[in-house]
């Protein structure tokens, strides 16, 4: 079974500063994907960034980047130049690689991020 752990229930950051959200996971799978989703108060789940486990290079999407440590089973999210619109719940998620495309996701418990003006 897969488990995803987010040890920071809440975090805050000053606008324009940098913040890192932590995530660890446990799996016996060798082929998988990791994701960070954002859920603002509107409750729409928005994909922030993804990482393929077979890629050593850390994924980057504009102000968002990850630090993927496969051996340590760690997958942290760094948000640079934080903006007020980044205020949301952030979920780390694991997906076992399937044959037919997307597979079901296992989510962590989430980190509530507040960006302070």
């Amino acid at each position, binding site marked *: 079974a897969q488990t995803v752990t987010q040890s920071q229930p809440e975090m805050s950051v000053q606008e324009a500063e940098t913040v890192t959200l932590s995530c660890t996971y446990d799996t016996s799978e060798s082929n998988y994907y990791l994701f960070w989703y954002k859920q603002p108060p509107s*409750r729409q789940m928005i994909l922030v960034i993804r990482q393929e486990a077979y890629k050593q290079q850390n994924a980057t999407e504009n102000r968002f980047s990850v630090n993927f440590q496969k051996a340590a089973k760690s997958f942290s999210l760094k948000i640079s130049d934080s903006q007020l619109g980044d205020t949301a719940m952030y979920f780390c998620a694991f997906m076992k690689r399937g044959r037919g495309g997307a597979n079901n996701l*296992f989510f962590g418990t989430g980190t509530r991020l507040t960006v302070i003006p």
Partner: protein
Amino acid sequence: SAVISQKPSRDICQRGTSLTIQCQVDSQVTMMFWYRQQPGQSLTLIATANQGSEATYESGFVIDKFPISRPNLTFSTLTVSNMSPEDSSIYLCSAGTPRSYEQYFGPGTRLTVT
């Protein structure tokens, strides 16, 4: 990517009744999923909606309580049956496209059972 809509967006229902939630995708997808998000909690997978066959349920979820239909590649329904206040949650539909491992989510249905 895929755009997903859900109806209704929210509802308040009485104990013992049933509610059917609809999920519509704007393109053909292979996988569709239903998740539950209880108040202040993370998302938990209820089932995988299989096109033309019975859904695959996760441990703790049964077909009699959460019947699911998926008549084609772009539409699915989830029914929450014989509701109790413990069923008050957000129910989210998601879908994955054939060429991608990414999942796209609908806006969710906020259900309150009184």
